[in-house]
C-alpha cells in the first residue's frame, strides 16, 4: 500500500496549511485570549461567543459567508483586489484565512484557560518587583501559560488537518493548491478507489489518535509535576 503522486501532494499541502494556520493563530489568538482572560468589559461575552461559533456552526455556513466576503463583490474581496492581490477564494491563502476562523476556538480557549489559571497574584508580585505591563506579560504570563500554548498548538494543527466542509466551500478541489487530504479521500471514494481511500483514511486515523494520545499524556505529566 503506497501513496500516489496526487496523494503525496495532498498530504504536503495539508501539512503546509496546518502549519501556516497554527502559527498565524498563535500570533492572533494570544492577544485575544489575554483580553478575554482579563477583561470585565460588557464585550467579553459577545466576543467569546463569536470566537466559539465555529464549534457549533456548520462549516458550510461559515464557508458560505466567507466565500461571499472574499468574493469579487464582498468587502474583503474588494479590499484584496484594490491591493492587486485578486480574490482569495480557490487559492491557498483563501484556505488559510477560512481555517484561521474555523480553528480559532481550538487555539484561543486553551490559552485563555491557562492564562486565567495563573490568577492575579503572580502579576502583583511582578509589579512589586518593578515589572511593567509588557515585562509582566513576557516574563510571567507567557512562561506560566506554556502548557496552554502547547495544547493550543496541537489542537489548532490537528483540527486544521481534519477540515473538510469549509475547504470545499472556499477552496474547491484544485490539485496542489486547495486539494487537501480530506478532499482527496472524498475524490477516491467518488471514483470507487477504495484502496487509496483506505490508505489515506488509515493514515489520518493514526495521526489523529497519536495527536490526542500525546495531548493527554502531556496533560497528565503536567498534573503530576504540579503535584510534586
Amino acid at each position, binding site marked *: 500500500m503506497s501513496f500516489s503522486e496526487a496523494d503525496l501532494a495532498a498530504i504536503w499541502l495539508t501539512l503546509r496549511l496546518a502549519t501556516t494556520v497554527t502559527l498565524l493563530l498563535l500570533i492572533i489568538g494570544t492577544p485575544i485570549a489575554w483580553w478575554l482572560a482579563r477583561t470585565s468589559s460588557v464585550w467579553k461575552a459577545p466576543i467569546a461567543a463569536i470566537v466559539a461559533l465555529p464549534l457549533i456552526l456548520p462549516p458550510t455556513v461559515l464557508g458560505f459567508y466567507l466565500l461571499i466576503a472574499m468574493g469579487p463583490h464582498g468587502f474583503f474581496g474588494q479590499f484584496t483586489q484594490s491591493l492587486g492581490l485578486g480574490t482569495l477564494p480557490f487559492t491557498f491563502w483563501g484556505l488559510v484565512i477560512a481555517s484561521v476562523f474555523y480553528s480559532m476556538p481550538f487555539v484561543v480557549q486553551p490559552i485563555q484557560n491557562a492564562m486565567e489559571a495563573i490568577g492575579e*497574584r503572580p502579576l*502583583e*508580585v*511582578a*509589579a*512589586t*518587583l518593578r515589572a511593567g505591563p509588557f515585562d509582566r506579560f513576557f516574563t510571567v504570563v507567557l512562561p506560566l501559560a506554556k502548557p496552554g500554548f502547547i495544547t493550543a498548538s496541537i489542537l489548532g494543527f490537528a483540527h486544521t488537518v481534519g477540515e473538510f466542509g469549509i475547504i470545499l466551500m472556499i477552496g474547491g478541489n484544485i490539485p496542489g493548491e486547495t486539494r487537501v487530504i480530506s478532499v482527496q479521500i472524498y475524490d477516491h471514494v467518488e471514483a470507487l478507489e477504495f484502496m487509496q481511500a483506505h490508505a489515506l483514511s488509515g493514515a489520518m486515523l493514526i495521526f489523529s489518535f497519536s495527536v490526542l494520545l500525546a495531548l493527554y499524556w502531556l496533560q497528565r505529566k503536567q498534573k503530576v509535576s504540579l503535584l510534586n
Partner: protein
Amino acid sequence: MQSDISNNHIQASFQLKHPEAQDNSFILDIDLTLPSQGVTVIFGPSGSGKTTLLRCIAGLEEPDKGQLSINGEIWQNASLSMPTHKRPLGYVFQESSLFPHLTALGNLNYARKRAGKKASNQLYDHAIDIMGIHDILHRYPQQLSGGERQRVAIARALLINPLLLLMDEPLASLDKQRKQEIIPYLERLGSSLEIPIIYVSHSMDEVSRLADHVVVLKQGKVSAQGGLTEVFSQIDLPLDYGDDTGVVLQGHVIERDRKWHLARIAFSDGELWVRDRGDELNQAVRVRVLARDVSLTLTPDNDSSILNRLAVTVDEIAADTDEAMALIRLKTGSEYLIARLTCKSIDRLQLEPGKKLWAQIKSVALIS
C-alpha cells in the same frame, strides 16, 4: 513647617468604602503618620483592614480617596497614583509568591535585574547571607519547604533595593516550628536595614518581638498607635487580647548568675531575673510580662517563692471583658505593668489609683 515633618515620615491617608454599602461604612478609613525607620507593625484581628492598608500603600488596591508620601516624595494624591511597578518598594506576600517557573536564584535575579540603580554585589551577598539561603539557590520553589520559600521571597524583596519594605503576615502560612525558624531572620533584618519596614500581623508574639512602633487597627480604623511599650501598656484598648494581655519591656543583660542559671535584666527603672538563655552581657533584650502572671501584695512578701518583685503604684483600673476580672495598670519608675485580678481581690486590697504596693511577677518571658 509642614515640609519638615513630612520629609522624614511616611504619611498615609486612605478611604475605601464597602462596594455595596449604603451607610457610608468603610473597609478602611485611616490617616497615619509613621516613622521612616524601624519596624512598624500593623496589628489587629483578621478583617480589620490590615492587608488592605498594605495593598493601598503598594498601589495594588485603588482607594476611593488616598494620599501617600514617603519622606516627602509623593506616591499618591488626589490627582496622581503611581502604578505599583513605579513605587520603590519591596513586598512580601502572605503565602509563597515565588515564580514557579524560576529557581530560587532565578527569582532573586528577577528582582536584581529590575532594581532601580544597579544593586550592588554587597547587597546581594548580604541578602543571601542574612536569610541563610546560600545552599538552596539552585532549587525550584516546589522543592523548597514553606519556610525556605518565604526566606527566598524576603531576600528577593530586599534585592529590588526598596525604600520601604512591606510584609503581609509573612509567617501566617507556616507552622509553629517554621515560624520559630524565620523570626530570628526577621529580627536581624529589622536591626540591619536602614529602610522602614511595615509589617502586618495578628500575632502577639510577632508584634512583641519585632515591633518598634505599633498601629492597632479595628474595623478599618486606627484604634491605637505609638511605641511598642506604650501601646501595650494601655488597658482601655478596644481590642481584647485575652490571656495575651501584657506589657513588653526593653532592657539589657547586666549580670549572669552561673550557679542558678539566671540572667539579670535591667530596664529603665528596675530589674528582673530571667532564665539564662546564654545571652552576652549588655545584649539588648525584650521581655514580656503577662497580666495574668502579675499578683499584688500590700507588703514585700519575703516568704514567697517568687523571685521578681517590684514596687509599684496603681495608675488606673479598667473593666475586663470577663465581669469577674479587672485590669490594673501599675507604674514602676517610667515603665508600666498590667495585672489581671479578680474584682473581689481589688475590693479586698482596696486598690485605687495612687495606692503604693508590691507586684510579684510569677513568670517573665524573654522574647528576643
